[in-house]
């Protein structure tokens, strides 16, 4: 057990959190192993986004422990967590007044300029729409283009753990596929993923998953186990 | 009535804002008077036939008229002061004028000389220190006419004090068929004169007259000094009132050969009918405060003197008697500021300001009165030599 724990990349124990007086998370336990892909499932307003925001440090962790690579991080500010190899993609966020180039440069805030340049070209190859508008302000992009930029922005730093909030929403099928492909190669490169996602297509990517319900983990298991679970089928497939 | 234990004199000053410098000078002069008179056991009040100590009640209006309004009212209605003295300048005095009349208080006005205040007879207003700004430039205009200076440039601040002087000056000049070659108002807050100076220079004037407040004059003279331009005659107002401030800021070189209205203590009244004469005051003030007094200190002190005289003349201790006392001493009194003469509207008609040139002598600036003749202490150097 302790050996497992030591190699755990992200370990979450009894985390409680919320907004002001409103408690949303009521004690979440969860683990992510290095290189693993974990899916967060759950109905609308179950607390998935809240959990991701707490893990990266945008929301304070009221109670419980968060450890990354064996180190307690729940009191650290986001920048410290990101420095240690985490990254987070929010649902909507890019910097609208900055150009696409500049947005990407900030995604690689802790990388050298040369690394940023190299990664940027790789990503532009994947998202030609962005390449064509690289000097334009991100604020002129369409909804889906912004999403692509958001994804590119977190992929650039090749983090050890990537937290993603609904990466596929609003993307055309062709790009959903691409995103999945990119994430696959990232996994190959050793990145662990924790993804809140509703698109069925992502199940193929997942090793394991958790079903969040009213701020608690209701169920967890491997992909096969989840697919077979009645609870998941009920909330997720509406069966 | 029984005599009060102290005579309350209420006034305002501005610790900050555009009127702070002048206001504080005036207040210090008044304070100096109060301290001095209290050392002698107080001011003699004829109505009670004895000396009573004075107490200054002073608030800070921060150069704001709305604040000043409430504070004047505080002095009148809450502190129930016996004598009400206005803050420096027309703007801060204006709000006190109707208020004082309403409460039947005599407003002793040291320096608020806007022509607007003095339009009809009143018992509740007396300008005790300086004449209305509209009459200031009359000797200057006459001097220009006398010197046969025809190409005149006028630059003035767009405020009551400066604009009214420019207007008067132009009126007098017009009577002699002189039309200024350059005549422009600038905002009161103007502080950049470099471009204006070039525009003025383009008209090749024989005299440049700048009517402004002290900061304007400083900025104007400094810009002139740095510009490399030179005019035969340059006139500004405030060297005559705040010579130290101006010298400190623009330097003696830049002030050399410029003209101004000299005021006490730059001109001295030796024979006075009441209080110290100008020189005595300068010495006494220096001894007491370790500071060289300026005109505003003098006018503050003068205000105290007038109050003192008023109290020792008024047979009854009420505002109408005070006013009557002021009227009675009008035309018969000379103080360190010169002849004292208030008309029925409350305006001061005393000695008009002469014209003087600042001439360098032995590393210092000498104030040489050049007009009118009977006051003159020397001859003007015209055109001013190039440095």
């Amino acid at each position, binding site marked *: 057990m302790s050996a497992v724990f030591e190699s755990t990349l992200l370990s979450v124990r009894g985390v409680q959190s919320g907004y002001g007086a409103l408690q949303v998370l009521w004690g979440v336990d969860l683990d992510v192993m290095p290189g693993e892909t974990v899916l967060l499932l759950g109905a609308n307003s179950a607390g998935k986004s809240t959990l991701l925001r707490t893990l990266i440090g945008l929301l304070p962790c009221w109670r419980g422990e968060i450890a990354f690579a064996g180190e307690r991080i729940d009191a650290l500010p986001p920048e410290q967590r990101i420095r240690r190899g985490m990254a987070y993609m929010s649902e909507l966020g890019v910097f609208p007044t900055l150009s696409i180039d500049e947005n990407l440069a900030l995604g690689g805030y802790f990388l050298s300029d040369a690394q940023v340049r190299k990664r940027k070209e790789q990503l532009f190859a994947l998202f030609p729409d962005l390449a064509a508008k690289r000097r334009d302000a991100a604020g002129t992009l369409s909804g889906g283009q912004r999403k692509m930029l958001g994804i590119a922005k977190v992929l650039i730093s090749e983090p050890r753990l990537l937290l993603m909030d609904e990466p596929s929403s609003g993307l055309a099928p062709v790009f959903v596929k691409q995103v999945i492909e990119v994430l696959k190669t990232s996994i190959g490169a050793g990145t662990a993923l924790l993804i809140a996602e509703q698109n069925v297509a992502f199940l193929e990517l997942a090793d394991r998953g958790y079903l969040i319900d009213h701020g608690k983990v209701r169920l967890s298991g491997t992909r096969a186990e989840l697919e077979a679970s009645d609870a998941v089928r009920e909330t997720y497939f509406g069966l | 009535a029984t005599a009060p234990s102290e005579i309350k004199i209420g006034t305002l000053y501005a610790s900050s804002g555009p009127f702070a410098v002048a206001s504080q000078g005036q207040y210090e002069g008044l304070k100096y008077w109060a301290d001095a008179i209290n050392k002698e056991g107080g001011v003699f009040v004829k109505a009670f036939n004895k000396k009573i100590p004075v107490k200054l009640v002073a608030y800070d209006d921060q150069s704001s*008229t*709305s604040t000043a309004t*409430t*504070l004047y009212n*505080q002095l009148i*209605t809450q502190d129930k002061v016996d004598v009400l003295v206005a803050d420096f300048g027309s703007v801060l005095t*204006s709000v006190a004028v109707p208020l004082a009349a309403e409460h039947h208080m005599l407003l002793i006005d040291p320096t608020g000389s806007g022509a607007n205040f003095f339009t009809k007879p009143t018992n509740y207003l007396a300008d005790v220190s300086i004449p209305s700004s509209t009459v200031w430039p009359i000797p200057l205009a006459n001097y220009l006419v006398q010197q046969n200076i025809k190409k005149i440039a006028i630059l003035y601040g767009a405020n009551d004090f400066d604009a009214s002087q420019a207007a008067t000056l132009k009126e007098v000049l017009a009577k002699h068929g002189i039309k200024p070659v350059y005549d422009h*108002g600038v905002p009161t807050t103007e502080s950049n004169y470099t471009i204006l100076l070039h525009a003025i220079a383009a008209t090749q004037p024989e005299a440049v007259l700048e009517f402004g407040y002290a900061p304007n004059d400083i900025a104007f003279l400094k810009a002139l000094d740095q510009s490399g331009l030179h005019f035969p005659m340059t006139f500004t107002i405030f060297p005559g009132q705040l010579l130290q401030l101006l010298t400190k800021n623009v330097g003696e070189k830049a002030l050399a050969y410029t003209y101004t209205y000299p005021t006490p203590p730059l001109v001295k009244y030796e024979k006075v009918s009441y209080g110290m004469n100008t020189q005595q005051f300068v010495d006494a003030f220096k001894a007491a405060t370790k500071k060289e007094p300026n005109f505003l200190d003098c006018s503050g002190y003068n205000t105290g003197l007038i109050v003192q005289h008023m109290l020792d003349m008024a047979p009854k201790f009420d505002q109408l008697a005070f006013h009557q006392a002021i009227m009675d001493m009008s035309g018969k009194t000379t103080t360190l500021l010169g002849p004292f003469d208030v008309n029925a509207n409350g305006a001061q008609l005393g000695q008009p300001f002469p014209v003087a040139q600042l001439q360098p002598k032995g590393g210092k600036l000498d104030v040489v009165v050049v007009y009118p003749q009977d006051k003159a202490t020397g001859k003007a150097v015209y055109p001013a030599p190039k440095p």
Partner: protein
Amino acid sequence: MSERFLLQRWRTGLIVLALLIAAFLLLPHVYGNESLLFTLMTFIVLAQGLNLLYGFTGYLPFGYVGFFGCGAYATSLLVLHSGLPVLLCVVGGGLAAVVMGLILGPLLRLSGAYFSIASLAASQILYDVVSNTNLADITGGPYGLKIEQVYAPTASYHTMLVILVLATALAAWFRLSAFGMGLRAMKQDPVSAAMAGINVVRARLITWLISAGVAGLAGGAYAWNLSVFYPEAVFTLQISVFAIVFSLFGGVGTVIGPIIGASVLYSLYSVIGISTPQYFQLIYGLLIALLVLFMPGGVLSLFARRGVRVF
């Protein structure tokens, strides 16, 4: 909103109005410095008028004093040239400010800081025009105006009280009516509000004009109360700044916030000014800074934090 709830709130509104009237009718008997009370009312009116605009639409006019000055000048010029009764002249001052608001209506196309500063620019232009020597024959230019013939401190005091009641009633209306709810929606998202069927441009303009009119009326009564004034007395930026600071401090978007804010801060201002004139500015500045730091969200946040729904 249920009918009963609305009724209850209207009752609150009436109580607030009654209290205001009672307070300012009684205060002069307790404390004789009527000028101070008058100025206090003036600032409450201005804070409230600013609140009508900023609190309900999010447009913060730095140049709010422009309407005040406009009202003061229009009133005085009417007194001097029209021969109308003073009260009508004050109303004329309010109307003049409304007309000025109409002329400046295009400013509402701007937003945020751009609007704030543009309105400031407009008020500066008004001031510069009014005080320009070239217009001395019409506006008195730098020499200011004098309407001593109508000077009447008590009547002008009562007039200001009426204006205060009017401004407060307007705020209550904004707070309780559907129009006010529309304003709140616009403030949060104008595009969405338009999609909800709100004529955003018109509603905003109406609010702007109402707010301008309140300041104009206040300016008129203020000029009447002063009766001798220079342009800077009614155009000084300090008036805008005080109105903004006071209403923000009390809590905008409410009815009683600006009243409390202006009362507290202006009273403090006067108390310090009278008790410790030597350090007037220093103490006042420090006090404001500390109040903000330890009471962010204004006075009303104290109530809101305890779950009290502030009127």
